[in-house]
């Protein structure tokens, strides 16, 4: 309890020192949302297995009903976990943009049976029925799939998720790279933010040409810092006994109750998928 209070106080002090950009990304990834909720105590491996099963069903479903049902369910689940809607939208924004682009491309460029046609100066824009259906199918799959991943992301701390991947025999190299990427993303973000502010203070972004030049310098500096950091980190790892394999803590045995609940969700999903 006391440690928590101290941590909060020190974290707040630290937060004041960090830039808005860094803090925004930190908030996005941090454990702030993962307080006690419906799924907080469920084993990450069960969550991962259920999500993978449902993802398979979403991607193989022929229509749009099942993916949208999953998306709706996921959204409600996120709200029940008290995830701020703004955060859900932030995570949805990018895939949603891609989904809309795919929908428009399919609608206007594929198919034979025209639904409507509009003349704009010398260009005639035609929307096709087959294209719309195909676009909606792909869009619903994207939305359904991404919503599952979002629920998993909000309900599972990153490290537990990675440990679950390792348990699923995902190649160790991939798991290790994910762990390092997650750890050093914040370090490099902090570095990038510092360099950016230093450049901005000396009018590095006054004008497009200067801005591009400064941005190039920033990117180059980060690459060099990346090499430097890798050297130091490998030394730190070697002196703590690293010999090529990142040791991961072994997970506890799966609970039968959680396993059965997970299986039940997959079976219900499977029945709806078959209907």
């Amino acid at each position, binding site marked *: *309890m*006391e*440690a*928590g209070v101290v*941590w909060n106080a*020190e*974290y707040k*002090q*630290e937060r004041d020192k960090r830039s808005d950009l860094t803090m925004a990304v*930190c908030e996005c*990834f*941090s*454990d702030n949302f993962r307080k006690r909720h419906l799924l907080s105590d469920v084993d990450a491996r069960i969550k991962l297995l259920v999500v993978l099963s449902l993802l398979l069903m979403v991607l193989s479903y022929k229509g749009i009903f099942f993916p949208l049902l999953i998306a709706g369910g996921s959204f409600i689940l996120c709200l029940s976990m008290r995830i701020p809607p703004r955060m859900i939208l932030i995570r949805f924004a990018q895939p949603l943009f891609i989904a809309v682009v795919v929908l428009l491309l399919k609608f206007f460029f594929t198919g034979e049976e025209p639904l409507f046609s509009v003349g704009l100066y010398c260009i005639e824009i035609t929307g096709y029925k087959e294209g719309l259906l195909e676009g909606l199918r792909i869009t619903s799959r994207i939305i359904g799939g991404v919503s599952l991943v979002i629920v998993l992301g909000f309900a599972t*701390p*990153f*490290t537990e998720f*990675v440990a679950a991947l390792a348990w699923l025999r995902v190649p160790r190299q991939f798991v290790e790279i994910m*762990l*390092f990427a*997650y*750890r*050093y993303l*914040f*370090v490099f973000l902090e570095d990038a933010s510092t360099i950016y502010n230093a450049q901005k203070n000396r009018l590095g972004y006054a004008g497009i040409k200067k801005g591009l030049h400064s941005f190039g310098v920033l990117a180059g500096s980060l690459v060099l810092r990346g090499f430097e*950091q890798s050297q*130091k*980190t490998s*030394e*730190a*790892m*070697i*002196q*703590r*006994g*690293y*010999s090529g394999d990142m*040791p991961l*803590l*072994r997970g506890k045995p799966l609970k039968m109750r959680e396993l059965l609940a997970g299986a039940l969700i997959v079976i219900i999903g499977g029945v709806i998928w078959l209907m």
Partner: protein
Amino acid sequence: MADVNKLQIDDEIMLLVKGLSYKYPDGTRALSDINLEIRRGEFIGLLGANGSGKTTLLRAMDGLMKGFEGEIYLKGRDIRTLKPKEIYRHVGLVFQNPDDQLFAPTLFEDVAFGPLNMGIDTKEVEKRVMEALKEVELTGLEKKSVHNLSFGQRKRACIAGLLAMGHEMLLLDEPTAGLDPMGEYKMMRLLQRLNKEGGVTIVMATHSVDLVPLFLDRLYILSRGRITRGGTPEEVFNAPQEMEDIKLRLPQIAELIYRLKHDDDLPFERIPLTIGEARREIVKSLNILTGRR
């Protein structure tokens, strides 16, 4: 400073450095003929200005550097003949920047990294991690992401990572750098406790002269890659001119007494390092001046 000819290897010597010299690949001389003897349970400081060779010396002592001249013995064995695993069972280096050292996503996993690599079973690892976190006062934060810890907490987390491996000797590169005055004091108290109660031999590099040396048993001054002076903090700080020559200064309280002694001819017998000692010295000299005993 230890005399190279008198250096003998015995059980009480944790680390022995004989005639250590090192040049960077560009030819710059980083260390010149360093001789050091670090005994079990000692708390030693390497004091020097920026670029004086403190970090290079610590890295050499930790076995991270190759291509040096001279000899380094860890518990009587030539460090060059030891495998990394043999070195790092006994000694560990805490880097200046904690982000160089903390690479696991959560505090618990980071502290557990070393013991797991040592092949210790999971239950024992958990026990060690919890004990190490308790030592550095980070209990309750084990599930926190490393990037969410404050700078001071990250510094302490680095120490916990090495403590969990059961090291007998810690090398620390400027552990108080970047900390506020209270953080600096707390860090030094922590190291003192590890040294006095835990029996951990500690060698730390620093350029802080006001607080850090007060905790140390012995102090070595490094200047341009050479050890120019060594001894207890009192002995080392008794040469103000020498300190100035190597771009360091006396602790502020010592500086005040030194000036009163030399500029105002006040009769001080020695240069104190703490406020308590200074108070006694001032009272004593006032008594002499007023003719009282």
